[in-house]
């Protein structure tokens, strides 16, 4: 008998399995669960985008593309980033196309981190930064953002986390799971701290199109002296409702991109060809579709925040992504208890906040990428639950 535990990579075996997966395995086995758990849009990919993909298939365009992605797509990404976020990346050597934002995150961390380097992870945040950094031998330095700061990273917190070994700051805004955004002045304060250092930034801007209110998303790469230390990760999943297409991109200074591309070439070859054809169409013709989806999310967001606060779950107003992150401590439960009790009592599934880092304890993530009717039904059940348990 082979003892696989002995054979497997220790680093991988030691990784903690995702807490969310465990929780939702229970939820999946129950009948009639109303889920508020998903992290992807409920909208279909815009018709013209799907059509472009079908057309490419019909024309038999089913080969690999260049490792970095189709030149036309890279040009469109470059134009898009300039048009929407005032960023300049040369399509030739300052960006490449990845298999979702996830791959870009993976490549970036693996290319920058040496064993013993410190990686600062702003939390609560998306679950994959830490495991990937860990496998690279990084020392994780979590930076816990707080509700009273609207879950923004402050200059003070960043200073406290810095050390001579700091290599990389993972900056995930607009944020999953909190819905927090960093305004230009917030980013300026962060930039001020980083200017005298050699710290690189992984700016995960996958939710960059989904911000609400008058302030548009600002990328830290737009700020003076920041471009040269930032790897920007973007993608099509959230903004164009294209999660299943697995398509994203990484942008940054050529020497870093070159190494990331090398690893990408050995690991992945290239991003899916059909998805690349689709993405060209998305970038060319879907600014309006994005605006429509954003406006729909915004209406849902307002309802969620209002109702949760009214039922006694204090909830700061998120300005980005499609999540609300209410404080459930008034119920006396831990995040996990709250989610379990709510699931068993009302068959409503939300995600425990501590799945996104310890600092998420005391909160739950509620996704509003659902139709309003679904959301209001779920909110009614949550309200019943809160009142019954008071």
């Amino acid at each position: 008998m082979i003892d696989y535990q002995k054979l497997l990579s220790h680093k991988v075996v030691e990784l903690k399995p995702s807490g969310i997966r465990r929780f939702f395995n229970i939820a999946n086995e129950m009948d009639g669960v109303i889920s508020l758990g998903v992290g992807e849009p409920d909208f279909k990919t815009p018709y013209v985008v799907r059509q472009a993909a079908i057309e490419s298939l019909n024309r038999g365009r089913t080969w690999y593309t260049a490792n970095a992605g189709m030149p036309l797509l890279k040009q469109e990404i470059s134009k898009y980033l300039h048009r929407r976020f005032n960023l300049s990346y040369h399509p030739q050597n300052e960006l490449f196309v990845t298999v979702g934002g996830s791959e870009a995150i993976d490549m970036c961390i693996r290319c920058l981190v040496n064993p013993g380097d410190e990686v600062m992870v702003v939390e609560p945040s998306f679950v994959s930064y830490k495991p990937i950094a860990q496998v690279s031998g990084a020392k994780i330095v979590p930076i816990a953002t707080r509700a009273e700061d609207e879950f923004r990273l402050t200059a003070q917190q960043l200073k406290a986390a810095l050390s001579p070994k700091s290599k990389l700051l993972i900056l995930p805004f607009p944020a999953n799971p909190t819905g927090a955004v960093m305004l230009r002045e917030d980013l300026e304060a962060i930039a001020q701290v980083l200017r005298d250092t050699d710290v690189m930034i992984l700016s995960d801007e996958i939710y960059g199109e989904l911000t609400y209110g008058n302030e548009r998303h600002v990328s830290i790469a737009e700020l003076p002296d920041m471009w040269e230390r930032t790897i920007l990760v973007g993608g099509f999943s959230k903004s164009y409702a294209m999660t299943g297409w697995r398509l994203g991109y990484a942008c940054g200074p050529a020497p870093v991109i070159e190494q990331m591309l090398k690893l990408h070439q050995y690991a992945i070859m290239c991003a899916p060809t059909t998805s690349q054809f689709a993405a060209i169409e998305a970038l060319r013709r879907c600014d309006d579709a994005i605006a429509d989806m954003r406006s729909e999310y915004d209406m849902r967001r307002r309802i969620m925040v209002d109702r949760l606060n009214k039922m006694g779950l204090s909830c700061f107003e998120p300005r980005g992504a499609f999540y609300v992150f209410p404080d459930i401590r008034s119920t006396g439960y831990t995040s996990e208890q709250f989610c379990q009790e709510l699931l068993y009592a009302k068959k409503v599934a939300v995600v425990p906040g501590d799945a996104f880092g310890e600092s998420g304890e005391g909160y739950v993530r509620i996704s509003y990428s659902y139709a309003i009717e679904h959301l209001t039904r779920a909110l009614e059940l949550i309200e019943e639950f809160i009142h019954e348990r008071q």
Partner: protein
Amino acid sequence: MDNLLKLLESDARMSTADLAVALGCTEAAVAAQIEAYEKSGVILGYKTLINWELAGRDVVTARIEIKAVPKMNMGFEELAETLAGFDEVETVYLMSGSYDLALTISGKSFKEVALFVAARLAPLESVQSTATSFVLRKYKERGLMVHRPQDEREVTHL
């Protein structure tokens, strides 16, 4: 207030409180706007879409294409008004193309619908001819899928 109409069109049961929050204005403003829309006829009414088949009641629906003789100075107006006055008639549209008016009507049985055509429609003075087609199956009604698609998203993913 376009968004107000959009929200109400997709869910007429949203409370004024939720509507106000979603639109970022006061409840009073929403209520006043709705009232204005109702008075001016922008909002025609609020009805429930029912899948009668699931509810266990037999309903037969037919589309009837009517060719008609237009009246002097009135066009098809008088006939259209007459047709709209029948309770069985659900929609009345003036059409471009090879016929003039399109009706949708519902009854308990084929016979009932056929009888309506023969006894009520055909004898009308300006009706020249009718062509009746029965609905065999409904897939989508007023923008809603009759068989509601399941949410196929994998909840285990982030």
